[in-house]
Structure formats: structure tokens, C-alpha cells
């Protein structure tokens, strides 16, 4: 389409932009087919192929341009596509739906309403993106291009003001001015800890060394988080541009992107984007005619959660076992290969270009007094609209869960939201109105974390949830320090004992003591925060622990050893639905005799409980 050419000045960027817009302007419609992780596994490529075929069959090649984009954010509705310029949103597509849509919309000019977005709360179809609640309440800065542009096209990234911030920084700002702008924006590290990015970069700038490194942490190991993955897959150039500006600010000539092996698609797309950036001269020598040289190398992780911790990550890049080291020395003093190193998370880098381009004042106008800007969350769990959202920091949790997330499926009650992954904590119903910012969450014993937000309904057992996280950290503990290696093992054993119905009240005290000891003595962030899910569930749901211990009862039936299903004879209407649904024929009765459960046969699957229309079954 457009000839590859070396970009040397901001004017070169403008001409690429003009050429690209000229090319696309020829088409009446542009279809953006979401190729985010969710839509890929839902079969978006078959849909795209069907689309191309139908366009050819209807001779519409000159009228309709089809592109693949990154995650649009509505992961449970895939495959989805957006028709531009009017932004009509088609969801849950199958290849069979496509011919009718093409004929109606592109040949006939009429939106094919049956296939558009259905709002479960309003119980009606909402055809245009701008009218959909899920999108209306979001502000996209890091995700600004995700789902809007072809992730594989550097031309389109440039056409969306891409690399303009890099041109501005490299050609008209000193490194100190870049650091200053980032400091004033109030941007804090989006990887979890929330350390001010400008302060970190300043330390990098001040460090004196013949060589410095900048590292992008894309080892998104928090189970329940897919923000970084979606960013890299959907807009790799925004991450590259952020790293490039950071490298200029601190004076690094080499950068690394450490991406986890579990994300093959992200690795592939990031590598492709790096190649393009090199072809255009946006990586390599004398970038944008500024005399600054820089390039990025991808390093693939190998399945270790602890490598998300910065010192462990650096050990892994060096080809070693990914074990954390004592700090100080901090990475900005002695990091990768013993040289000063600055490590930032993917989302942090994605915010850099807009901050440089639009100014720190603009960025700081979003968010709260102490937490500026926006934050990307991966909404998942028991929630209607699972997916990727970006909201101003400080939005109430209830707004995220209900306004954007559309509430819980099946009309179930909200019980808790786990925020911050295995290092975080849970927010309960009483605190739904908490503003989601670094400080407010800290007060409730949770953390902002990297952005995993898992909603749990009334059926979830919080002791079981604590056990799940403890299994995770115990499994992922690298074993280097004793408190984490043995402490997590002991805490897990106690939780297992409690969920098996063999717990004692002393176990709760022992859990608390152990949790405090591990927090205060573990070597790295993973170990120090490992007890958080226990402390948090104990603080908010102590009664559930006590029920497991004193009454030998799990109120949600999740802990099978404790579950005991019984049918209330008086409430039973003898419909027989429970017996029909029992997979092991443990329920007997007939239209004259109330049904009852044979406990020796019962496998505690809970199928009957969910099926009884009269709520006659208790557990």
C-alpha cells in the first residue's frame, strides 16, 4: 500500500499520516474485526474470512475495507466487529451471520439490527458504540488505539499521532524535561506497587554509568489479569514508543521486553511491530535525526510468577533462575548485568506518549488528587460484561461493577471483589462505594495491583478463595527465602485442614501469626504480600472461617467435605426435579412421598440445590 520509508523528521510522520488517511478515505465503510485473545479463541478468523468472501461475492471490494484490531474490550461477546464510520457494533458473530449483514449494511445501507449489541440490563439492542453503557463510562488513554486501529500497521499507528510524542521528546526536549513532564503528570507505576514513574526515571537519569538499560515488564502473572497482554496484542507500537521515550529520558541505548511464554500471540505481534519500527528507522541508529540510538530485544519468560518481581525478572533476562535479590542495591543503582536499569510495566509505558504529546496538565486532570490518570482493569469472574475497561482512577467500585460491568449474572448478590490478585485483598458489599484509587484501597487492606478485578457472587466460599490463592503462591514460591517457602506451605496446610472440617479455633490464631511473620520477613514482594488474601478474608469474613470450624459447615457448599445437602420435607412439593438431575441417583421419593437424599450415595455436586424451584434444599 504505502512504501516503507525511513522517518527522519516530524514532517515525515505527517506525510505517512496523510498517505494513510488518503488510502482509507477511498472506502465508504471500514470494518474493524476484533482479534483480541478472546475473539481469536471465539473464532474471529473464520468470521473475517466469511466477511472477505461475502464482500467479494457482492463486489464491494472498493467500498469496504476490512482490518483486524486489538481487543475492543467485550470479551464475552466475541467474535465482534465495529463498522466505521458510524460505529455500529455487531456481536456474537458466526460465519453464517455474515452474508446477510454484508447485504443489508454494505449493499443496502441498513444496519442489520438482529446481530448488534444486546444490553442485558436494558433488555434491548443498542446498535451504536457511543450509546452503549459499557463504553460510555470509560476514558481510554492507554487503550486509546486498542480496538480502533489495525495492530499490524505502523502506518495506521502513525496516522493516529503515533511516534509524534517520540519526535517531540527526542528533538525538542532534554531528557530532564521529559522526566519532569512525567513527574508532573503524577503517573504511578501500573504494575501494582504504584511507585511514581517520574521519580524512578529521575533516578535512572541521575545514575552515572557507561551503559544503562530500560526494561518493559510484560510478565503478567497475576491470575485474572489480561491488561498487558491486550495492550501488546492490540497496540504494540504504543508500548514501543513509551519504552523509546523512557530510554531517551534515562539515557539507555538498549531495552528489553520480558514477555511471558504463555502469551504466544503477544510475542508474535510485538516482534512484528519491532521489525516495522526498525524498517521505519524508529528503532536503531540516529532515531528521528536526533542522534539517539536505541533498540529493544524480546526475552521470553518460562513460566515463573516470581519473575514479575523486578530483581527476579532481571535474573531471568540474564539467563539465570528467576530468584529475587535483596534490595538495595535497587535496579537503578545496580540492575541488569550490574548496570543501572529502569523497569516499568506495559501499561505504564502505554501512558507515556499521550502524556508527552498532550502535556502533564491534561493527564493530571483525570483521577484523584493523589492518584492521577486512568487505570485499565480486566473485569472477570461473576460479572455480565467480562472484558477490558479503562476508567479514571477514583471511580466507585459499584460503578465499575454495575454501570460498566452490567452487574452479576443470574441476578445473584455481589459478595466480594478480589482486586490486586494474589497480593491483594477483597472488597466487600459494604465498601462497594469506595473510590478505586491507590490510597483508598490500601486502607481497606487491598491494593490497586496490576488491574485484575475478579467479582464473586454469593455462592463463593471465601475460605476456599483464600485457599486458592495460597495454593497459587505456595506453588509459585521460588524457595529462596524460608518465610515464603515454608510459611506459605504451612498456611496452605491449615486452610486445607479447615476446609476438610478438621480445623480448630486455634488455627485461626496460628494463621494470623504466620501471616504477620511472613509479611514482615519474606525477601521479595511476592512473599511479603502472599498472606494478604488470608488476612483480607479473615478481616471481612471471619464468621465463615468460624462456621467451617465450629459448625463444620460450609455455607456455600463449595467445600465438599463439609457440604451436607438435605431436603426440607415440609417445603418439598414433590416435583421430582432434584431426583431427575442427580447424577448418582442418590435422591428418592415420588408424588406421594417427599424426596430425600441418601447421604451415603451423595457426591455433593450441588446439582439438586440449583434445580429446586421451591428452595426446599439446604446445604
Amino acid at each position, binding site marked *: 500500500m504505502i512504501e516503507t520509508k525511513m522517518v527522519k523528521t516530524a514532517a515525515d510522520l505527517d506525510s505517512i499520516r496523510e498517505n494513510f488517511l488518503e488510502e482509507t478515505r477511498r472506502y465508504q465503510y471500514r470494518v474493524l474485526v476484533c482479534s483480541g485473545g478472546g475473539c481469536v*479463541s471465539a473464532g474471529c478468523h473464520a468470521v473475517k474470512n466469511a466477511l472477505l468472501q461475502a464482500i467479494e461475492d457482492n463486489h464491494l471490494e472498493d467500498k469496504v475495507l476490512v482490518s483486524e484490531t486489538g481487543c475492543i474490550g467485550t470479551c464475552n461477546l466475541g467474535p465482534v466487529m465495529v463498522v466505521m464510520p458510524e460505529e455500529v457494533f455487531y456481536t456474537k458473530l458466526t460465519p453464517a451471520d455474515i452474508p446477510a449483514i454484508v447485504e443489508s449494511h454494505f449493499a443496502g445501507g441498513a444496519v442489520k439490527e438482529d446481530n448488534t449489541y444486546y444490553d442485558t440490563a436494558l433488555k434491548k439492542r443498542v446498535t451504536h458504540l457511543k450509546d452503549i453503557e459499557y463504553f460510555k463510562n470509560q476514558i481510554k488513554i492507554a487503550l486509546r488505539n486498542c480496538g480502533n486501529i489495525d495492530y499490524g500497521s505502523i502506518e495506521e499507528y502513525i496516522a493516529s499521532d503515533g511516534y509524534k510524542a517520540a519526535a517531540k521528546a527526542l528533538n525538542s526536549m532534554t531528557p530532564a524535561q521529559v522526566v519532569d513532564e512525567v513527574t508532573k503528570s503524577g503517573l504511578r507505576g501500573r504494575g501494582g506497587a504504584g511507585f511514581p514513574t517520574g521519580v524512578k526515571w529521575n533516578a535512572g537519569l541521575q545514575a552515572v554509568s557507561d551503559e544503562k538499560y530500560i526494561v518493559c515488564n510484560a510478565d503478567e502473572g497475576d491470575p*485474572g489479569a489480561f491488561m498487558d497482554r491486550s495492550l501488546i496484542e492490540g497496540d504494540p507500537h504504543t508500548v514501543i514508543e513509551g519504552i523509546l521515550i523512557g530510554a531517551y529520558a534515562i539515557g539507555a541505548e538498549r531495552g528489553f521486553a520480558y514477555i511471558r511464554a*504463555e502469551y504466544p500471540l503477544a510475542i508474535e505481534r510485538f516482534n512484528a511491530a519491532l521489525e516495522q519500527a526498525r524498517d521505519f528507522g524508529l528503532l536503531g541508529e540516529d532515531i528521528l535525526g536526533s542522534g539517539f540510538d536505541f533498540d529493544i530485544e524480546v526475552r521470553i519468560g518460562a*513460566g515463573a510468577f516470581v519473575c514479575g518481581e523486578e530483581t527476579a525478572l532481571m535474573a531471568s533476562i540474564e539467563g539465570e533462575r528467576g530468584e529475587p535479590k535483596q534490595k538495595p542495591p535497587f535496579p537503578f543503582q545496580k540492575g541488569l548485568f550490574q548496570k543501572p536499569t529502569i523497569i516499568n510495566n506495559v501499561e505504564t509505558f502505554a501512558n507515556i506518549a499521550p502524556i508527552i504529546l498532550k502535556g502533564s496538565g491534561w493527564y493530571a486532570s483525570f483521577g484523584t488528587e493523589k492518584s492521577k490518570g486512568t487505570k485499565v482493569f480486566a473485569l472477570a469472574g461473576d460479572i455480565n460484561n467480562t472484558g477490558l475497561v479503562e476508567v479514571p482512577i477514583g471511580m466507585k467500585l459499584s460503578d465499575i461493577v454495575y454501570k460498566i460491568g452490567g452487574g452479576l449474572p443470574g441476578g445473584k448478590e455481589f459478595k466480594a471483589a478480589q482486586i490486586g490478585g494474589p497480593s491483594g485483598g477483597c472488597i466487600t458489599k459494604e465498601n462497594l462505594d469506595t473510590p478505586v484509587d491507590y490510597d483508598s484501597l490500601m486502607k481497606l487492606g487491598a491494593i490497586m495491583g496490576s488491574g485484575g478485578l475478579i467479582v464473586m457472587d454469593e455462592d463463593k466460599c471465601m475460605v476456599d478463595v483464600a485457599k486458592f490463592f495460597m495454593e497459587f503462591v505456595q506453588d509459585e514460591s521460588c524457595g529462596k527465602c524460608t518465610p515464603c517457602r515454608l510459611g506459605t506451605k504451612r498456611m496452605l496446610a491449615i486452610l486445607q485442614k479447615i476446609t476438610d472440617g478438621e480445623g480448630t479455633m486455634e488455627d485461626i490464631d496460628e494463621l494470623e501469626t504466620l501471616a504477620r511473620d511472613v509479611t514482615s520477613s519474606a525477601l521479595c514482594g511476592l512473599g511479603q504480600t502472599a498472606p494478604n488474601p488470608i488476612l483480607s478474608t479473615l478481616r471481612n469474613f471471619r464468621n465463615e472461617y468460624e462456621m467451617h470450624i465450629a459448625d463444620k459447615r460450609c455455607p456455600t457448599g463449595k467445600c465438599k467435605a463439609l457440604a451436607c445437602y438435605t431436603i426440607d420435607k415440609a417445603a418439598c412439593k414433590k416435583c421430582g426435579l432434584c431426583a431427575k438431575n442427580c447424577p448418582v441417583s442418590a435422591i428418592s421419593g415420588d408424588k406421594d412421598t417427599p424426596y430425600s437424599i441418601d447421604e451415603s450415595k451423595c457426591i455433593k455436586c450441588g446439582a439438586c440445590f440449583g434445580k429446586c424451584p421451591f428452595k426446599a434444599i439446604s446445604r
Partner: protein
Amino acid sequence: MNMNPEERETVCKCGQETEEQKYERLDQVIEIYKSKPGSLIQILHMAQGIFGHIPSELQEYIAGKLNMPVAKVHGVVSFYTHFSMVPKGEHTIQVCMGTACFVRGGKEILETLTDELGIGVGETTPDGKFTLEVTRCIGACGLAPAVTIDNVVYQMMDSNKIKQVLKNGEFGA
């Protein structure tokens, strides 16, 4: 799995290649990476791509080529869950145990699979057809619970659906 451009050459061509040819390919990889500091993990990724797994002989061979102690290579191989020292089955089934999948019933799916296949986590069926693994979040949380078979994601699974997938017997892209 897609990796660096040169790594794409290293996908397993099991059954089509002699041991000698495999070592030849590995030598080429080592030659590219030898001079770059800290490339051990990347070399191991590719070795696993070529051989399917990294047994002790291979670890010794790589250590020799890189002029480093075998203990260091073994230390790295055994530290990372991605590397396997034993051959895997024809198909690798990974049940996602990230938080979202856990909340949506991933545990039940794992139970179904252990029952159906008659093997535990990390084991391979006696006929060498399936290896069952647990993975920590594949980032498909919006599609929970998810299972991957040979890197292809099967979304919103339940016990019946996964049984059906096994029964159909067609895996991969």
C-alpha cells in the same frame, strides 16, 4: 508457539527428523545466541521446540557447547515450569487455574479431565496421547473457564463440553 523469527524454524518436526538433524539445528541456534550474554533461557526454549523436551543428555550437551556447568543448565531447566525433562504426550491439555477460571468452575473441569483420562496433573496417558497440565492464567479470563489443547483455547467450558471435545478428537488449529 510463535517466537522470534529465527525461532520459528525450531518447531518440533517429530518423526520427520533424525537425531542428528535435530542436533544440527540446535547447533545453529546456539551459534546465533552464543555471543549474547544471558541467552540460556532462549536457547532452552528452542531446544525444547526442536526435541519436544530437555532430557539430561541434552542439558549436558548444551552446557558443553556454552562452556558452563551442567548444574547451572539443570538449575534453570528445573526452575521454570515451561521446561519439561520428560517427553510429553501427542496433545497437551492445559486447564487454566487463574482466578477467573477458578471462580467460574475450573476445578470441576480439572476433576472431569483427571477422571476421563485416568491421569493426574503433570502425567501422560499410557498410550502417549495426552499430557494433562494446569496453567496459571492464560489471560482468557473473559472466556472463563478456559482449557487449551495444543495452544488452542477452548472457552467457557463445563464438564459436558470438555468431554465432548475429547470425544470429537480433533485438536489444534
